[in-house]
């Protein structure tokens, strides 16, 4: 009997899909982060890896717990919580106590990510929120960087760490920095685990640009804005390029420009919106650095910008595409 074409079927075209999965977005970030961590083990031994591992375990447990509460299948496979944990670790001091990163990760996953509904629904960048949280709560611990030459072991707690001021803090206190440019490039300055090795960071950045996982429109406009402000309002004595070098290479600036500002979920998609996003974020960071309480205000700037991203996106799209469509409709 001829059945006829009765389309009762629920499944609709397309019946083929691009091979990208949610995990492919995290995978690129993961690959870009690995060399940074390897590089830091050269300086600090295995402690950074241990911190990273503990944070990742915390992230997975938190996500599983939240999914249990929500009666939902855990989506750990997509890897976003692992990336969050790695980013938080990257912004910690190598001598940070183990619990500090775990607190940040727990806050990031439970309250910033899962409370809003999990991957894709979070309004704020979880890693930035986690770091901002511990910056507020434990300002004394987070910016304590060991002097170069200090032997970092896997001890539970460090007593009497000989702390040395990071470039960011010397910028804040107005002193001059005694580091040379190549020391910055090679990461031989006091700083967090993954944020000091500028050369490796640049390699990661290029990798992510090539993979189209990071957008030059955000990263470069952000860095350019920061550099311009550093020229206009220098905080150190000396030539303008000294100021630019110090501002860009200190703190989380380049690390954040690559990883925090390019999180797909919380940043705009339109190229014009991305441009504005980078510029505004740059202005905010420099404002926080100039008048803020802490030596690094990047995470706060990122969080503030996250709230604007959807609006920026939509308005830029309308600006560019609506006049055309209106004309089409008139015709």
């Amino acid at each position, binding site marked *: *009997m*001829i*059945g*006829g*074409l*009765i*389309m*009762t*079927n629920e*499944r*609709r*075209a*397309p*019946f*083929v*899909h*691009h091979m*990208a*999965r*949610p995990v*492919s*977005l995290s995978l690129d970030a993961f690959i870009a982060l690995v060399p940074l961590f390897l590089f830091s083990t050269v300086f600090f031994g295995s402690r950074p890896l241990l911190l990273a591992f503990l944070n990742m375990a915390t992230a997975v447990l938190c996500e599983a717990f939240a999914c249990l509460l929500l009666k939902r299948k855990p*989506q750990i496979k*997509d890897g976003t919580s692992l990336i969050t944990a790695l980013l938080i670790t990257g912004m910690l001091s190598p001598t940070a106590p183990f619990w500090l990163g775990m607190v940040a990760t727990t806050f990031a996953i439970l309250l910033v990510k899962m409370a809003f*509904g*999990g*991957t*894709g*629904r979070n309004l704020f960048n979880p890693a930035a929120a986690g770091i901002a949280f511990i910056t507020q709560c434990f300002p004394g611990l987070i910016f304590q960087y060991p002097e170069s030459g200090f032997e970092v072991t896997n001890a539970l707690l460090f007593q009497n760490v000989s702390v040395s001021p990071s470039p960011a803090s010397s910028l804040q206190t107005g002193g001059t920095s005694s580091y040379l440019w190549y020391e910055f490039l090679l990461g031989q300055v006091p700083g967090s685990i993954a944020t000091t090795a500028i050369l490796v960071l640049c390699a990661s950045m290029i990798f992510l640009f090539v993979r189209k996982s990071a957008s030059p429109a955000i990263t470069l406009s952000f860095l350019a804005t920061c550099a311009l402000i550093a020229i206009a309002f220098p905080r150190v004595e000396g030539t303008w390029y000294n100021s630019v070098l110090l501002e860009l290479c200190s703190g989380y600036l380049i690390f954040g420009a690559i990883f925090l500002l390019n999180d*797909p*979920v*919380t940043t*705009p*998609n*339109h190229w014009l919106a991305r441009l504005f996003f980078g510029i505004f974020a740059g202005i905010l960071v420099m404002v926080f650095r100039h008048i803020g309480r802490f030596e690094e205000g990047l995470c706060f700037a990122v969080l503030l910008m996250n709230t604007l991203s959807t*609006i920026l*996106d*939509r*308005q830029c*799209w*309308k600006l560019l*595409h609506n006049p*055309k*469509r209106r004309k089409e409709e008139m015709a």
Partner: protein
Amino acid sequence: MRIQKNRGTYLPYKKEPMASLPLLRPDHIRQVILPIFSEYGVQCRLLLEKDSPVSQGQLLAEPLDEKGTPVYSSVSGILTDTYEAEHPLLGKTTYAIIECMTMDEPELDAPLDTEDLTAEELVAIAREYGIIDEIDGLPLANKLEGMVDLYPTCIVADAIEDQLYSCSAWATLREDYTQVLKGLRLAARAIHAAEYKIAVALTRVHETELKKEIPPEHLQTFEPDFYPHKELDDLGLAPFSIGVQACRALYRAASYKEPQTEGILTIAGPAASLPINMRVPFGTSLRVALEVCGVSDPSSEVLLGDSMTGLLLDSIDIPIVPGMTCIVGTDAVKTHASSPCLNCGRCAKVCHKHLLPYEIARRFENNQYSGIDAFHPSACDGCNACSYICPAKRNVSELVLEASTVAGVILFDWGPHHDE
């Protein structure tokens, strides 16, 4: 010369080996089932009694309206029965069952001279010989008549086939380049267009093959593997495009007085062990055609049309009618679990209509219907490129399409819309 493309994405290339193999003509068709149907709203009257012999190309039914399309028998045999059935695409229709006796290639006389045919005569030929355009399933005569009023300068034979498997237009061209070109020239004359072009998107190998046969001024090439090809829209030629099978049929109707009784379709896909392009008489059961191509596994599912925009068929016991150019047999279609939107923006990047699919989908899912209008979901043409590219495997295009039906409906008032 290849032309700048619009937005879109690249698809994997799966047209081989069908595109390189010769056309198959199955010779063991026992029965055809022809819908006695002319066009929407125009019924046909069956001319023959039950159990009367018919020969291939014999007039089977004539339309009750002078603008309708007649139905010709696609095989020689005996008209055994008729019955009525509901057809979701065609409406309530009568089917005629013809038991097939012989399947010979018809002998062709010497071609008639077509040089003196006027535009009106050509349109009348297209109507008289029941030529249906395979691109949209509309009668060619009506399409040509509609085009004349727009004063076109160019007519295009659309052989682009931007989807995954389909290459039936290429197979039609390859079988006889000159007949298609001559038919296109007749169509151009029918609408008083000065230029006529064949638009293709082929790999280098096939393009070289084609260039040997078709003069460059009648060829418009586009990049292969790209989806969707909307350049004809951008060039303003989309309303003036017809199918290559219709071109061929027009030529053969004008020179040999042969009605269009056969169609060429691609049968391919993961479940087809012998993917190929075949020429079958209209009315052949899809089941028979699929068996020829080795789609016999009962768990495999069949798509009408290609993978990007096709429909999943519930039953394969349907007759092949004009307008079916590609059938894809797949292993049981996987339903991908979709996860929430990652806001990655890829769907917006591939949308050739410059929409924001994720934003429309988000508003639709949040019942924020009042604000949807500002994002023009009605501009979507359902190309499905956004759903293809989405890493979260969301069926964004379906949401956009549904959103276009609710645009402007206010369920809840969410306060003033300052951002619209």
